């Protein structure tokens, strides 16, 4: 729980020495309560006060990075159970697991595939974020070599070391320590040794136990050994365990301030069938996982999972908008149909999709209406005859058209007269009311 200004004030030296830049300790305390300054601005504050403040201001779900560099993925810091309440904060990392006993070529290929997985989707660059290297060979030397190889061939990916043997783990961590690999995993049996390796190398550590009771005990133990960046594996394998454990973990952390489970979650979703695996991965993505580990990746699978993650992690308060401009669909010639709609992304997706389905190359003017749909924008006075006229004139599109004709959404047919008055020399045509009628409409015009 966050402390009030007065509670913080009681922890300060109360000398009003002004070294923090504030006239009084109380003023500084008030600012601290609003998280407007950092406690370190006061040089004289006691260690004890710092610790109290730190614990009180810690987020209910701890946040830290997986991997290093500008492709590192932030984990944790979530604040809600449902995305309509507030934006989900840190999109989960997508990882693929590979066994160290594969040939060098196979290892290198997988690393290369991960490296090449980045695609651009609705303005965001999305990629497979991490590779989990599984200790299956039984040889510490082989494991270390595989880890080194994969790390070198996938220089941007985060590394997860999937190995229960502490000796092999120690060597592998040292080999790629600069990449801050995630250590998988500490169990009740090896917690001391794994925590020691994690602490010595400054790496995050997965706590793996069977069920949430045992897991809570284990994270407390690991924390007691000095490791702060912990990831949870409750042993959930079935979709049922994933949804129930993950829900209980997030609820315990957010609603009960239960610190032992206030960490990000990792789920392994391996299935024999790749499409079924994508379905189980969706359960983990939607239901609170921070790292989802797959058994294999492919371009179609990446695309489908990236899209789901992107959809669920968008801000529900901000309507998704697309850029205002005239979009070309197909390769429109000068006499191609010219249509207009608003910049609500859903409207744009549906309308442009239907134009594509029609196979009639067209131009689509998308007008900035602050992300409102056609009818709402019209009702709000943002999609009016004069604003549309101004946008069309300023776009300079007339020069590219053989014939100045604008097709208006059927829902705002009422605007056609006023628009014809304002857009001199233009013919205004009323198009279909519903987007699903666009293909028939465009094909009808073309014939």
């Amino acid at each position, binding site marked *: 729980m966050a402390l009030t200004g007065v509670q913080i004030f009681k922890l300060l030296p109360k000398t009003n020495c002004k070294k923090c830049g504030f006239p009084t300790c109380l003023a500084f305390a008030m600012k601290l309560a609003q998280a407007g300054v950092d406690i370190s601005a006061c040089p004289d504050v006691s260690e004890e006060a710092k610790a109290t403040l730190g614990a009180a201001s810690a987020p209910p779900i701890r946040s830290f990075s997986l991997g290093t560099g500008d492709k590192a993925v932030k984990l944790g810091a979530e604040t809600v159970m449902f995305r309509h309440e507030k934006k989900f904060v840190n999109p989960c990392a997508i990882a693929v697991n590979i066994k160290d006993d594969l040939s060098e070529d196979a290892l290198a290929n997988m690393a290369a595939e991960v490296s090449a997985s980045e695609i651009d989707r609705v303005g965001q660059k999305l990629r497979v974020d991490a590779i989990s290297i599984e200790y299956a060979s039984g040889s510490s030397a082989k494991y270390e070599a595989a880890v080194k190889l994969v790390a070198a061939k996938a220089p941007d990916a985060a590394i997860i070391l999937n190995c229960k043997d502490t000796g092999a783990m120690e060597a592998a961590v040292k080999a790629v320590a600069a990449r801050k690999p995630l250590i998988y995993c500490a169990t009740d049996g090896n917690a001391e040794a794994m925590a020691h390796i994690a602490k010595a190398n400054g790496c995050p550590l997965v706590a793996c136990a069977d069920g949430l009771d045992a897991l809570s005990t284990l994270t407390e133990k690991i924390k007691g050994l000095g490791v702060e960046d912990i990831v949870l594996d409750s042993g959930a394998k079935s979709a049922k365990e994933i*949804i129930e454990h993950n829900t209980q973990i997030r609820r315990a952390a957010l609603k009960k301030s239960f610190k*032992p489970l206030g960490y990000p979650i990792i789920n392994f979703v391996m299935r024999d069938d790749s499409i079924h695996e994508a379905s189980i991965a969706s359960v983990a993505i939607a239901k609170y996982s921070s790292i989802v580990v797959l058994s294999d990746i*492919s371009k179609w699978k990446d695309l489908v999972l990236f899209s*789901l993650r992107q959809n669920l992690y968008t801000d529900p308060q901000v309507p998704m908008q697309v850029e205002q401009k005239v979009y070309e669909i197909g390769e429109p010639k000068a006499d191609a149909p010219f249509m207009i709609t608003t910049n609500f992304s859903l409207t744009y997706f549906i309308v442009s999709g239907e134009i594509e389905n029609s196979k009639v190359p067209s131009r689509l003017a998308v007008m900035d209406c602050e992300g409102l749909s056609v009818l709402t924008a019209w009702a709000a006075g943002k999609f009016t005859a004069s604003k549309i006229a101004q946008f069309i004139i300023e776009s300079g599109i007339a020069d590219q058209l053989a014939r100045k004709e604008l097709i208006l959404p059927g829902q705002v047919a009422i605007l056609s007269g006023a628009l014809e008055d304002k857009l001199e020399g233009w013919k205004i045509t009323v198009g279909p009311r519903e987007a699903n009628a666009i293909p028939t409409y465009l094909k009808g015009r073309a014939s």
Partner: protein
Amino acid sequence: MSFVVPKESFNGKVLAVDFGKDDKALAIGGETCLPFLSFEGEIPHKPVIAYEIQDCVPDDWPDTVKNVYKDVSGNPVTWAKYCQNELKAKAIALRLSSTHPDRGDRSAEDAAKTVKDVLAAIQVPLIILGSNHIEKDASVLVASAQAASGSNCIIGKAQEGNYKTIVAAALAHNHKLIAMSELDINLAKQLNILITQMGFDKAKLITDPMCAALGYGLEYTYSVMERIRLAGLAQNDPTMQPPIVGDVGMYVWKIKETVASETDVPDWGALEERGIAWETVTATSMILAGTNLLIMRHPKAVENVEKTINELV
């Protein structure tokens, strides 16, 4: 600190709706907790998947899914039998697409005959869907409801612009009814109220808050469904307690990701898997948000989602 399972219990309950006849009848809904969280509530019925068929050759479906049915889709009766007998469909959703003025404009009488023929050929429950044309659906669904009288079907979709006639037909012939509104919890609530004010039992309603495909507004559908569920369970709002339907197939199998070949978009990978995965993942997210009844097209997608449902219960 020892761990205590943080349970939540609700006063509200999702209404259970049954449809179909005899030993093939099905029920959906009835749960007292959020989707699949059976550690804190009852989930008497798991989500049901209905196979979508149409009353005309589905030439607007992309090849991946059209080819599956190429030998049977020339006739809705053979198509329905194929789904029931070969694909082991638990329910069938017959979409009367060819009644749409732009897609053949077949008459309500024609549609009624198709409904009768399909019903005579199958034992599993039938969902009867119009072509989503407000005016035409009113007449088509009235005639279809009559043709299916006594079969305890689900008919739909009743929308703000046509619900009165469709509700009256569902009442007269004792069918269940899908009420559809566009991605807005308040509109969904308002339509349910209008329909029950006509004397229609809310325990026979199914809410369609409008589906969207993954990548094309799925998050709106997802959140509207979650909010409807929370309103029904946590706030015990009786108008928000009918089960939810997700009409997934028709939204998925027209977007670019299920249509564009790998040659056109090399970055997107194999088209066949991509399409099936798209329907699978869209449907999976819908059931996580609260959908009780899915309408889907590709048998492999249905199979994968059923596997996931069986893992979730």
